[in-house]
């Protein structure tokens, strides 16, 4: 075949391949996209609508009108004070996730990745909290603190009253559960680090700390960024297990935004028209939080990717 004919044949082949590729692409992505449209787009569009709805059945019929009342409710002086308290707690948990949970989880994961002493045993024990149902862990912990360790604290700690130890005790539980959450993901990501790079660092005389910080962390930076994005996304939904501990009686001082929102739509506290009205208020608050958290999350991600450590 001449060169021209070869190029033409190759071009046809490429075109056919492209078409088949498109066919493959469309057939594989169609159903997931449909599921996404149904269960995300349509569902949440309705939620956005609800943020502007007023529900009234006082005349014996359900009447829905539209206004800014639900949004305005959260700007009244008293609600702002409560919300701010919740936001502070939520930010505290965010900071815990980023500056305590993540670094320590990474260190633990590195320890297992490098197969240091008793790594296998630690690996199994570390992972246990993430496989035990959180409800069950809360039961164990609640009775453990309030009964087994009550002597240490001079009485029950976990309850609806504010006391000096309670926030600390709740944070300890949160940390216990959080450390093990992403261990697997970190270890899996660390496994991508070429052994030759680590060996080279060893030969250059780097200690384990340097290898961790300068070799492994840059390698898994993408995973780290992904998880930080998730932490930011959790900012408005993280209940910090408060509902499982307290039902709807968590003390105001410990509440997070996620718990505050969840409490609004708990049908144990509110029923009927009250619950319907609260659903709409909660949708409004969720919408406002989304508009704040979403751009912050994207900004954080882009900054971390731009200025974070590089693999090379």
């Amino acid at each position, binding site marked *: 075949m001449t060169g021209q004919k070869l190029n033409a044949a190759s071009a046809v082949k490429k075109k056919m391949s492209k078409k088949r590729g498109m066919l493959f692409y469309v057939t594989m992505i169609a159903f997931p996209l449909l599921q996404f449209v149904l269960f995300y787009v349509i569902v949440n569009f309705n939620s956005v609508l609800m943020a502007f709805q007023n529900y009234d059945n*006082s005349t*014996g019929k359900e009447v829905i009108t539209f206004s800014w009342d639900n949004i305005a409710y959260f700007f009244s002086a008293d609600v702002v004070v409560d919300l701010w308290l919740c936001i502070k707690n939520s930010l505290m948990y965010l900071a815990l996730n980023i500056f305590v949970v993540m670094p320590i989880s990474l260190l633990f994961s590195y320890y297992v990745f490098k197969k240091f002493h008793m790594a296998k045993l630690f690996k199994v024990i570390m992972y246990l909290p993430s496989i035990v149902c959180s409800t069950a862990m809360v039961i164990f912990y609640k009775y453990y603190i309030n009964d087994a360790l009550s002597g240490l604290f001079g009485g*029950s700690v976990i309850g609806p009253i504010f006391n000096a130890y309670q926030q600390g005790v709740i944070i300890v539980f949160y940390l216990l559960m959080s450390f093990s959450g992403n261990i697997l993901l970190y270890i899996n990501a660390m496994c991508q680090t070429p052994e030759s790079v680590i060996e080279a660092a060893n030969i250059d005389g780097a200690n384990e700390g340097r290898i961790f910080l300068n070799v492994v962390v840059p390698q898994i930076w993408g995973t780290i960024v992904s998880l930080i994005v998730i932490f930011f996304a959790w900012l408005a939904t993280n209940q910090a297990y408060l509902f499982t501990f307290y039902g709807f009686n968590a003390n105001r001082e410990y509440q997070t935004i996620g718990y505050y929102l969840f409490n609004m739509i708990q049908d144990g506290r*509110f029923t009927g028209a009250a619950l319907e009205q609260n659903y709409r208020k909660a949708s409004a608050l969720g919408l406002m939080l989304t508009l704040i958290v979403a751009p912050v999350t994207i900004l954080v991600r882009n900054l971390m990717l731009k200025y974070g450590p590089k693999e090379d």
Partner: protein
Amino acid sequence: MKNMVKIISLLLCLMMAFGFAVGCRRDNSDDQKVNKSKTQLYVKYYNGGFGDEWLNQLCAEFEEMYADAHFEEGKTGVQIMKEFTRGQLTGPNDMKGKPINVYLMENIDYYTYVAGGTMLDLTDVVNDFAVTGKDTKETDKKIVNKIIDSYDEFLNVSGKYYALPLFETSINLNYDIDMFEQRGLYFAEGKTAEDFTEADFANESKISALFVNDADDARANGPDGKPTTSDDGLPATYKDFRALTIYMKITGVTPFVWNGYETGYLTGLINDMWANNEGAEQMKLNFTFDGVANTLVELDGNGKVVKNADGTIKLARETDIDESKKNLLQLQKGKLDALEFAKLLLDDGLGNKNSTNYYSKSFDSGFSNINAQNYFLDPDGNNIDPIGFLVDGGWWYNEAKVSNDRNIGILPLPKTDANQIGKPNTKVSDRSSFIFVNNETSTAVQPVAKAFVSFLQSDYAMETYTKYTNTFRAMKYDLSKKTLDTMSAYGKSVYATRNSDDTTVLPWTPISQVARKNASLLSYRTYGFSVNTQENNPLIYFKDHANATAVSYFEAIWNYRK
């Protein structure tokens, strides 16, 4: 290590298999199979603390009554299919597409379900006599005449009825009568702490002198101010109540226990005290936002409570209440007095190391209502001091399966001061429980459903309810002497508290259209005592704000609600 893991895994699998094998003792007696020769009536009942024995009996009797009735072609008789669980309805949509015909539920916002169109019109049932047999009915009173006036006001929607009230209950202070008798915890005749000073309250011998030495000693008249009634010897006023709590501790009794998980019970009790202080007419303003308020506390320009020269709280002039002024009801004096009472539950005000009035675990979120009941009923078995009062709802007696030989009573709430002794009692019933029929019930089954609902309103059925639960349906009926004689002391106490002419029970539910428009404001957990969107429980507020007084808390409530 690998082998160890394999061995452990194998052992655990074997344990699980062993557990399945040994533990699977199957008792399928609760399964219900459809009898195709009969018409099925599906009944869903919120089977909470009141239990289901009463309903099981009535269902069996109803089936027997209609054993040879024909409601559907080719079918004779009725088979009741029961769903007696703790499942609640989340809203009218929860009823759609379900097989259930008749509901007996709590936490039902009546108007939401009416507006949702899911409740069958029961007007014909209500305006008729209650069914007592297949072809027999009562002849004395129609069902509509058994509905308590305060319920009738909101159940009647433009002349139609869509539901009937189920139970009526409040949060009460329950006490062990035998323990009270043994320890002489009754005020002696003519004795009261009404004139006590702070120094007197700290004086043990003065406190002790208020109480009987012997079970047979004559007792004070109690809150109703009448001699030889069931409340004789019980604290008549707040000061008497305070003295009682101090005396209890002197005799080695812990005054109170409540559960730390469902703290709404505490709010319920203080709501009750608020209603009792206000009286029915003034308390009802909170459910109508329409009327004249004459018990509002006067505030100065800074939102502070104004006092008279003699130190008493100054009341404002009579005020017309409408939707724009509904928040003024937060200034009802009965609420301020209720906050004083809340403080008495927490401590005796003496400021010493023994001042706490409640059992130490009461604010432990793992301390359930069952634990609290158990500790109250069996202090010896739990190695604790006896407990004076259990704070719990009227259902607790059945829930705890208390044996009938226990003498348990309900404390009539004390009055704010001696001037109020003898004033009628007011209670609030906050569970919003109703009986209604699903609008999707087929036309063939509707007559059965209606007959069943009607039967449940018969005096016999309501008396059966009371016999088993020791509480009352939220309807007008009385008990036969035979039933009364066989009731427990607790049941008799409930009867005495509720059925006296002096007691009005208000349903905690928005009555007027204006009130219904503000339904989210009127949640019984949050309406009365909120100082922000989260703090709404009086006892917890006082615990969290150690320096708060009833007046400062009252002012904070106003500051939030104004």
